[in-house]
């Protein structure tokens, strides 16, 4: 019989701290903790000494002081008398705006190029590989500068639009592409919200978005009901007309009630007035980020579609499913599982790369908080810490979304 002996007790020797696997990890962690504490103490001590020598301190009260500079591109009310905090907030909104726009456009470019790269057409697929290789292998910074150059050097000045035989003409008579930016017709609600001042357009659009969300849920209910009936009876009721009505009728009704009109930009004095102005910096950063990241997304899309094995398509064909239904019912759901995680990380990259907007003078959060505010107040540590916290929060939110998606779509095995 074997006797299970207890490990020897009481004879603890110092060498067991390193050689006994029961204690070793604790020892190593204790050493690591001490080293870490020493390093942190050393760095913190240096910071404190340096700050004292320079007569500085850590103080966030500058956020409440007037910023003292103007911001051209802004989504909310802001004047040079507003606080630094508000300037930072304007910057945050601008960052989110350009990131959002670029994500949408990059997805469009990427899906388009990725699908076309798999085309049977030799010429088209080669063209798309050239697009991908060129844009992936040249720094996005250079693309931003090139597109900014196109916007400011090649586009005509507003005065070129003047006179009988003007050098430049408005696009379709409603939009003007100038070297100061692009002017497009701006929607306005002439009734109901007319008297509410500056916010009227904003509220109108919020209501419109609410209606669109409502339509989405309405249409989903109809589709689900159709699926239920199909599962019960085998016959799917026609939903197209109902869905179209749910999508468009409320919105059109809303626009008619509120009297939606479009204000067309006009050349007045030295510049265009009216409509919506999209500044050259915004266009440069938006377009450059989209076309650069689009090349990466194209590769993800291609990889995703190629990852669905051919047997899946053939099996679906053997079941007698029509080709376009094979795409939507069999290939896409499986490809999306591969495409979406890298896609989300590309969105994260877009958000982080939008900080390059500072290069062309777009007032994103890096340019306001990390640029002008930092330079004017000299509060380097505070500004940079806040800036990092902002980007960190955004990244963590996007990662959380990605994790949630991964968990909900991963293959459920065993």
């Amino acid at each position, binding site marked *: 019989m074997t006797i299970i002996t207890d490990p020897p007790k009481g004879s603890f020797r110092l060498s067991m701290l390193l050689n006994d696997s029961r204690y070793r990890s604790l020892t190593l962690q204790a050493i690591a903790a001490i080293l870490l504490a020493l390093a942190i103490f050393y760095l913190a001590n240096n910071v404190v000494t340096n700050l004292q020598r320079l007569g500085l301190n850590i103080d966030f009260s500058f956020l409440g002081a007037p910023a003292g500079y103007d911001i051209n591109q802004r989504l909310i009310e802001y004047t040079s008398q507003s606080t630094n905090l508000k300037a930072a907030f304007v910057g945050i909104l601008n960052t989110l705006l350009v990131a959002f726009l670029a994500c949408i456009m990059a997805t469009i470019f990427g899906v388009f190029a990725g699908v076309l790269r798999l085309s049977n*057409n030799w*010429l088209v697929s080669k063209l798309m590989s050239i697009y991908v290789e060129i844009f992936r292998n040249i720094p996005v*910074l250079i693309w931003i500068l090139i597109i900014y150059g196109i916007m400011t050097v090649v586009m005509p000045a507003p005065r070129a639009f003047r006179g009988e035989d003007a050098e430049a003409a408005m696009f379709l008579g409603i939009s003007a592409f100038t070297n100061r930016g692009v002017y497009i017709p701006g929607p306005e609600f002439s009734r109901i919200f007319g008297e509410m001042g500056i916010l009227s357009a904003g509220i109108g659009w919020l209501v419109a978005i609410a209606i669109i969300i409502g339509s989405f849920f309405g249409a989903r209910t109809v589709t689900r009901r159709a699926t239920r009936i199909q599962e019960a009876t085998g016959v799917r009721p026609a939903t197209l007309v109902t869905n179209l009505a749910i999508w468009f009728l409320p919105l059109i009704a809303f626009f008619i009630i509120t009297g939606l009109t479009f204000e067309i930009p006009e050349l007045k004095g030295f510049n265009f007035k009216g409509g919506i102005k999209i500044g050259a910096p915004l266009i440069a950063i938006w377009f450059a980020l989209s076309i650069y990241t689009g090349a990466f997304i194209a590769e993800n899309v291609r990889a995703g579609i190629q990852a669905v094995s051919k047997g899946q398509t053939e099996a679906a064909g053997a079941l007698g499913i029509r080709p376009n239904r094979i795409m939507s019912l069999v290939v896409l759901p499986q490809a999306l599982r591969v495409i979406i995680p890298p896609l989300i990380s590309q969105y994260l990259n877009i958000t*982080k790369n939008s900080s390059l907007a500072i290069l062309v003078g777009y007032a994103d959060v890096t340019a306001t908080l990390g640029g002008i505010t930092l330079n004017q107040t000299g509060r380097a*540590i505070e500004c940079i810490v806040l800036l990092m916290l902002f980007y960190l929060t955004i990244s963590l939110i996007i990662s959380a979304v990605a994790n949630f998606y991964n968990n909900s779509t991963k293959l459920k095995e065993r």
Partner: protein
Amino acid sequence: MSDTSANAVAFVRTESVPASAPPVNAAGPVKWLKDNLFDGVGNSILTVLAFVAIFMILSNTMPWVLNGIWDAPTLAACREILDGTTGACFAVLSERWNQLLFGFKYPSELYWRPALAFAMLFVAFAPVLFFDLPRKLLIFTGLYPFIAFWLIWGGPIFNPILALVGLIVGYVVFVRLEKTSFAMAMGVGIVSAAVVWSLSKFIGSDSAILSIGYLETVPSRDLGGFMLNMMLGVTCVSLSLPLGIALALGRQSSMPLIKYVCVIFIEFIRGVPLITLLFVASVMLGYFFPPGSGVDLFIRVVIMITLFSAAYIAEVIRGGLAALPKGQYEAADSLGLDYAQATRLIILPQALKISIPGIVNIAVGLFKDTTLVSVISMFDMVGMIRGPILASTDWNGVYWELFSFAALLFFVVCYGISQYSQWLERRLATDHR
């Protein structure tokens, strides 16, 4: 029998008909065209559109490129030569190439030094990149950082040699003690290297030894142009690789303290844009050093970019570690290897092999990101274009020629690296497919 049949039938063919050529549209270029370009209505439309796009791009760029002026002192003179016709002013490149490549402050009579260092870079990297080359070349790879430092920054050859001797002593000590304990060997090795390095304190500033092999010194703020991009890229990738491996192993560790320190570090760095880290390097990092140490901007930037890419490389290597079957770890354990041995001999060689494409992607991305230093007013290639060249009265307004040149250089390097990575992947594919 055969005779009768031959007579009975009026004509019997005795040899087979020679194979006739396939129809024109079933072989050769016509078939290729039909299959690849005009396969159905939709494809034909796409082809026509693609041709139109190619034609428009070429017809707009080719006259500009072919009609380019390569020899003119200023933009105004160049425009005069062009006389209203379309054409590029590549003269800016032939006049300012040295600034684009070396920055505007690097002494022009010393250009041979970074150029030589650049040429030697290929020799140094060759044995790392191509396994078939003689292994002896790796010695040169080891020496290269010291030679390159000496060539680019100048100064007495004594400093790099002392650094090298210190490293060699440390390594020899490490190898001697490695049998007993990995951690102890590491510690004693580092200490003995530090002892050798501290010898430099005993050399007086006017000592004769400092005049041996003295090259004119160039301060690092005078570095610039594409050279700066190359230096930052190569240095930071090389430094971040070991750091990234350490972080990846730390993140896999079973010790919670080490694991969470690594996790927090990696996630923090990956969560913020590089530009904020460069801001840290330019305005904040100085506070973390002892008062009066005055670490120069180049080193601060190298530190931050290295930390940045180490976090990304760590994630790639973690992917490689996770992809290894658990049996590999267990097999190493059952052979009685300790953690250091198992990691070095069994785990890392396989994990790194899996991670190579990812690491190369990070390296390419990092090299592209070195252009960001122009934001904190370092004059790298893009900084040179935006600053001294475009701001000069001679060349104010030459955008496309300069940016095309920068884009071309980056494209050549990045595309080259990615092609190498694909070759390596095929080379290393040991599984049978």
